[in-house]
């Protein structure tokens, strides 16, 4: 095969792969949209936000409690996971002796690999009873957030680690030559230099938290209500779909697709923000 023919083949193959991948994504969105369309066209968009309750079999489609629950839970979990993940990455990179560092690295990777249903089991048998001792019923917004936080810590920690490792050597040397202390270098140079990558990692973790279903379903109580405290049981959008899809028909089924579509759009927005900010990483 001549060189140009090989090039053409390669180009063709890559293009097909790219088209298939993006095509499938488009198909999924198209599918979600067509399934969601009936209820959209009949009840309108506003109904999903301002209906009085979620009684989908009786034509009441208020998604607000679930939206709020999803949002609150992912925010809370990221508020717990981000400091933890960043701190652990910094600790690993700058303070931990090599043995501890390697052990910690393994723990983070293993944690990332635990199936969410297993984390859910653990939450159900450990976290929920603990919270129950503080305030009943135990299965709650807080329980969901804690389990989620544990799930997304690795995402934050690993992206932060990668970002810190990408800082060019001459920044460290330059900082040392200015007489900066280790803390000064860390807070004044290293973290600001990679802030956008860290932010991108947080956005990705948040997208993951929003989309997580199983563990959340197992520990957060699944009552459709606007939470007024951390100890209230809540139902997230994802849990709602998983719980009701099995028996939903007609408009109800269609409404579940609407919530799926809403989730997808939210996650897309987060991923887009992550990409935008991640693109600004400085590697002079």
């Amino acid at each position, binding site marked *: 095969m001549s060189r140009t023919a090989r090039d053409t083949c390669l180009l063709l193959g890559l293009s097909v792969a790219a088209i298939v991948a993006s095509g499938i994504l488009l198909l999924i969105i198209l599918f979600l949209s067509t399934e969601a369309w009936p209820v959209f066209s009949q009840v309108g968009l506003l109904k999903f936000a301002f209906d009085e309750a979620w009684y989908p079999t009786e034509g009441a489609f208020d998604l607000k409690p679930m939206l709020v629950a999803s949002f609150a839970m992912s925010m809370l979990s990221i508020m717990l996971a981000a400091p933890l993940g960043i701190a652990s990455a910094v600790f690993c990179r700058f303070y931990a002796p090599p043995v501890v560092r390697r052990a910690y690295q393994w723990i983070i990777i293993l944690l990332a690999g635990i199936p969410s249903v297993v984390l859910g089991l653990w939450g159900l048998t450990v976290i929920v009873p603990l919270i129950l001792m503080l305030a009943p019923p135990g299965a709650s917004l807080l329980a969901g957030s804690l389990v989620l936080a544990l799930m997304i810590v690795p995402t934050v920690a690993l992206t932060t680690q990668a970002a810190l490792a990408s800082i060019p050597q001459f*920044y460290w040397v*330059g900082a040392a030559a*200015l*007489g900066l202390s280790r803390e000064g270098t860390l807070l004044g*140079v290293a973290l600001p230099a990679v802030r956008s990558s860290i932010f991108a990692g947080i956005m990705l973790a948040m997208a993951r938290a929003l989309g997580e279903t199983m563990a959340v379903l197992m520990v957060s109580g699944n009552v459709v209500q606007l939470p007024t405290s951390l100890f209230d049981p809540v139902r997230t959008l994802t849990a709602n779909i998983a719980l009701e899809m099995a028996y939903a028909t007609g408009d109800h089924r269609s409404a579940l697709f609407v919530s799926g579509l809403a989730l997808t759009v939210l996650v897309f927005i987060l991923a887009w923000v992550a990409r935008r900010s991640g693109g600004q990483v400085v590697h002079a």
Partner: protein
Amino acid sequence: MMSAVDDKPTPSREGASSAFTLGPLVAGPPCCTPQTHISIKSVTLSYGRIPAIRDVSLDIYKGCITALIGPSGCGKTSLLSCLNRLTDLIPGCHVEGRIAIDGQDITTPDLDVQRLRRRVGMIFQKPSPFPLSIWRNLEMPLREHGVTRRDELEFRIEKALADVGLWAEVKDRLGSAALTLSGGQQQRLCIARALTLEPSTLLMDEPCSALDPLSSAVVEDLIQSLKGQYTVVIVTHNLAQARRIANYAAFFWVKERAGTLVEFDQCRTLFDQPRHELTAAYVKGLQG
């Protein structure tokens, strides 16, 4: 080797444009009455067990520009990093001998290296502003060293920027990213950053070699203007530049796989009447 002390040039013989007169920032003693600022005695530096420089002794004079020249790998950068203990950062790097700055031994393990590095600034070949704003680049090290009063910060930063001739160029964009500056501006910013800490000495490792000729000339002028106020040790492969700006020059060569000092003298003398064959060959070879 200490001939600089023995045969002082008379300014009249050297002429008014001689490299031994001071620039506009006269503050230190004139270079024709050399006063030792940094004294390097029998310094041997090894990476692991392999010596990179062996038994180097050299006096660096206050307020003067001393150029370190020699072929690649003869240990110029290594010697420079002994002077602000940047060698501490390299695992396995080991320095023997005595280095004193203003009479104070800086090789002792219990030395406050942060204070030392504040007194002895360093400029690298690759301009290395941090990926922060221009202002933060200058403010952050100052704050680290305990300067927190707003008016003092502003005063020092403006003064340093003015000293490197950058104030007019950047005063309206102090908040923009330092990496948006041109290479020459970045290098001057790095010099300004070192100057804000009010050092007595500046170490420069090929500060112009990553710059285009115009920026290089600007930075060279700047270095020249530091003469008198700061003690400057500069490594350069550009012999014409060394000749233009330096008062003293030290020539290094690799002998038995380790860098050694071959000749140290006033810059003019070293270039025009080198006492050593190696120096003569090097100076001529690279000039011709």
